[in-house]
């Protein structure tokens, strides 16, 4: 509800002052990642979420569901991208413990600033820095597993580049992100723990090929800390994305999230629909 009101607020403000963004090549705006930032599926990229150029703004929204063996993650989020320079995002996670019963909710507020470059046109990769502030709404499970805090902030630096025609004539996109974090399983299991309560640097990467103007496929990898000593695994996924227009995108992925809160082998389908509202 709060997301919706924020979204309508943003729509009203920005519809009055600027033109809607449509000025990037189709497919090069990327998608919306789990925590609400413009990116791939699980990794934030240096690209901002919308098709806005330096004279434009855009407003985007998305829903994502990940169905695992013992859990189901539902995400709803929205972001505003300003003049291809700054991005502000909100996302809400609801993590259903489908086997154990119950759910864990958290909110993620994000901001990202593009420091350098254009993902397609600059010689060097586009570089952005970002923050993701996470606040747990349901803290019982996080406390039960021994986490130190109920909220935390991630900091990341991302580099993304599209190489036109580089993969046998197909466009190739890669992203590399370094993230300082204390979050356990995105923060759903709190921040820090008995094994470690300091920031650690985690590397995240994406590699994709655009097989046409409307289809892309690729892989992602996200390194994770194991602050709780529960054997938290790195995440990975393999995705296909259909981008019928600059207005909407659909992503289907197979995600392997490893061990979550002691339940091993958490794999399943990841489904996401994103759209540019303005």
């Amino acid at each position, binding site marked *: 509800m709060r997301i919706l009101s924020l979204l309508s607020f943003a729509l009203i403000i920005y519809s009055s002052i600027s*033109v809607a*963004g*449509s*000025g*990037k*090549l*189709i497919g090069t705006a990327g998608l919306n990642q789990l925590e609400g930032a413009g990116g791939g599926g699980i990794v934030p990229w240096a690209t901002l979420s919308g098709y806005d*150029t*330096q*004279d*434009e703004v855009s407003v985007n929204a998305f829903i994502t569901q990940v169905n695992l063996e013992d859990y189901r993650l539902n995400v709803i989020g929205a972001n505003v991208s300003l003049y*291809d320079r700054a991005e502000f995002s909100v996302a809400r996670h609801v993590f259903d413990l489908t086997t154990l019963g119950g759910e864990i909710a958290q909110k993620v507020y994000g901001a990202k600033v593009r420091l350098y470059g254009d993902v*397609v*046109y600059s010689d060097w990769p586009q570089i952005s820095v970002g923050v993701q502030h996470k606040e747990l709404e349901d803290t019982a499970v996080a406390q039960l597993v021994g986490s130190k805090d109920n909220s935390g902030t991630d900091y990341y630096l991302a580099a993304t580049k599209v*190489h*036109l*025609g*580089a*993969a*046998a*004539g*197909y*466009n*190739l996109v890669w992203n590399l992100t370094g993230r300082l974090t204390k979050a356990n399983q995105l923060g759903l299991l709190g921040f820090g723990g008995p094994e470690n309560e300091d920031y650690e640097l985690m590397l995240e*990467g994406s*590699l994709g*090929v655009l097989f*046409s*103007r409307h289809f892309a496929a690729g*892989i992602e*990898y996200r390194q994770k800390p194991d602050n709780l000593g529960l054997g938290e695994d*790195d995440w*990975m996924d393999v995705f296909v994305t259909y981008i019928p227009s600059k207005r909407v995108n659909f992503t289907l992925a197979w995600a392997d999230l490893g061990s979550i809160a002691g339940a091993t082998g958490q794999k399943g389908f990841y489904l996401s629909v994103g759209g540019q509202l303005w």
Partner: protein
Amino acid sequence: MVKHIVTLLALLLLVSGCASRSTTLYEELGGEAKINEIVENFVYEIEYNETILPYFAESDIERFITKFSEQLCVFSGGPCEYSSDTMEQVHGGMNITEADFNLTVDLFINAMNKANVPHRLQNQLINRMTHTRRQMLYL
């Protein structure tokens, strides 16, 4: 996991290495005839785009067709020479925005689609044109 990425990269390199190096992109596209077709389609796309058309208000369209064909020939490795004003001279004072530039790239892609240029050749041609962007924007 890293192994998978390395394998994928190696595959990509291998596949791109297999593409014939002996023929130029110009030849793969279909030479002068195909480039003329792309440029004619492009002019048609511009004529019907009310955002981009004003940029061409004072242009000599015949000259644009000749010079742009010449450029595409050079960029794709064809047997041509570009002889004209610099890109900066041509686009100075137009104050082309990033959005309008990218819209024009979309029109160029439409033009290539209508000329049945394969997706992979389209990307390679655009890749050889990108350096002109900084010679055109916000001048």
